[in-house]
């Protein structure tokens, strides 16, 4: 019984993990059709923000929830202004440029901070469930994954900013004609996507080793989740994360991590074969 509870929590956590990894990428890719190959490095930057600022005495929660998204979001805006804005509509060029960006960020962070910096340990300690004990932080992950989804949905659905963003993505020319500064919308969207990624990176920092090259471990999973999910940012990310997360985590618990990973990939493959446009249909129908 205890073990069953643990398994359920583990699966929920695996789903949340994928949601966190994919949310920022989903915004950038789903809304702007820019493949951000440096996504893993944006996560890394969020992680570094957290460990550097906690080292300087900042409260860890403040660092994770405020500083990480702020820094990475600002960095995202900078990148958008300097590079990405020249590459809209050129999906592959954006891939190449962000590949370059990812190398640049790995090298740059190594130069500035070095590659061996003391990390932060997981806050909140452990929780006992029967004979087992699990990190209480797991619940933080699950909570924030849920919050992410609700917040993005709320913003897109109910706020003027969300409406403007949706309008711009659907039809930039028409939005421009209605007096919307589309360049600003793009910049803001990229910035918000980056900030969400930064927040995710901050939340992941206490769970992984934060080193400059950590991004590569995450980028594959993030992309597969976003693409398998298809166009709808929230429904897609959520359904793909749920499906892939539970399949892979289930396999991991039953057999081992190798088959868990393989199961995730195979599930994605089968899904894409059956639903060639991702779970939530065509990319151009940009519903939520």
């Amino acid at each position, binding site marked *: 019984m205890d073990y069953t509870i643990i398994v359920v929590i583990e699966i929920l956590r695996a789903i949340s993990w994928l949601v966190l990894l994919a949310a920022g990428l989903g915004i950038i890719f789903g809304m702007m059709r820019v493949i951000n190959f440096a996504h893993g490095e944006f996560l890394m930057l969020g992680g570094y923000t957290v460990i550097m600022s906690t080292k300087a005495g900042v409260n860890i929660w403040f660092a994770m929830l405020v500083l990480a998204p702020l820094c990475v979001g600002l960095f995202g805006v900078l990148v958008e202004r300097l590079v990405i804005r020249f590459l809209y509509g050129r999906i*592959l060029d954006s891939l190449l440029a962000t590949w370059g960006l990812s*190398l*640049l960020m790995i090298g*740059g962070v190594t130069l500035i901070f070095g590659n061996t910096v003391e990390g932060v340990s997981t806050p909140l300690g452990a929780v006992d469930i029967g004979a087992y004990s699990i990190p209480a932080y797991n619940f933080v992950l699950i909570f924030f994954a849920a919050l992410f989804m609700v917040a993005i949905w709320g913003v897109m659905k109910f706020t003027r900013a969300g409406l403007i963003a949706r309008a711009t993505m659907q039809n930039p020319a028409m939005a421009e004609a209605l007096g919307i500064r589309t360049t600003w919308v793009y910049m803001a969207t990229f910035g918000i996507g980056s900030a969400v990624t930064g927040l995710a990176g901050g939340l992941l920092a206490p769970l992984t080793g934060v080193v400059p090259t950590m991004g590569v471990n995450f980028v594959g999973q993030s992309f597969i989740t976003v693409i398998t999910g298809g166009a709808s940012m929230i429904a897609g990310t959520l359904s793909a994360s749920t499906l892939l997360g539970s399949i892979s985590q289930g396999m991991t618990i039953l057999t081992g991590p190798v088959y868990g990973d393989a199961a995730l990939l195979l599930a994605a493959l089968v899904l894409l074969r059956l639903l060639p446009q991702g779970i939530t249909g065509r990319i151009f129908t940009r519903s939520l």
Partner: protein
Amino acid sequence: MEKPVAKDPGFYIMVLIGLLIMFGAPIWFDLFAIMQVTQYVVLSVYALSLAYIWGFGGILSFGQSCFFGLGAYTFAVSSINIGETTFPFILSFVLPAAFGAALGYFMFYGRLSDVYLGVVTMVVTLIFWKIINHTAGPEYSIGDARLGGFNGIPSIPILNMPGDPDAWLDPAQMFKFFMFLLIVVYIGLRVLIASDFGRVSVGIRENETRSSLLGYDVRRHKVIIFAIGSGIAGMAGAMWATYQTFIDPNAFSLEMSAKALIWVMAGGVGTLAGPILGVILLQWLSLKLGTLQFLNNFVILGAILMVLVLALPRGLVPSVKHWALTGWEMFRRRERAAPPAKEVTSDV
């Protein structure tokens, strides 16, 4: 594409340069330089495989390394078992081509396109990469060949003369043979692209709906293109394996796939000469950087890639061609007042 291969001076220049290097290099260059150039030759063949399916078939594969790795491992496993390299070398073309056809069937008959195609190829590559990385234990061997997991397969035989397993090719012979293969692949692809099959491929790249409305079976065409590209990538993998006498799962890595994309993009999509230039330029650059000791090499390489995309969006060869044409038109415009009509030029 209108211009037949036989009338394109660029084609003859490329082949001539190729032949010149093939026979000249062993005379002019020392052994070390020849081994360097051999590497560029192998990677050029690999780059051509993607240049073909992407530039002339409109198929964007994020998983070209899947076939590269498959060819490399096919060659390694079969040559270690057979003790001879001619048949394994052929097999390393055939098997990836067959797998490419199967995967192509799965994708194109499933109407996957666009980014989804890219992701499926990427996922398949990742699966290979995971599986091959998982083969560290001694239970994973095929005949005499241990797959070796992350550490890879060492001591892969060097190519031998067909029929004589003891007559290993020395570095200069291997270089010549590889250069010969590169020239053959280049000529073969040029001829194929200029053939009716190739014209239809370009038509499909330009407009799939229209192609099927003219009665062409888009799916079958794409499967064939994809299989040819896969076979060439597989052959490049075998060349790589025998050149290094060593292969590890990095052959299947996303990095290896991305490199091919980058070479083709840097050189120019829709050309064959461009990707070869891309290989030489970028490989030479990262080699050169490693011998210098300033900053971090990832910083420099990353910055160069970004500048490349922003400054030469079309890729090297098309950009240079465009500049040359604009220059020529300005010159002509000065000669005659009337601006010349834009005509389609051969871009291979």
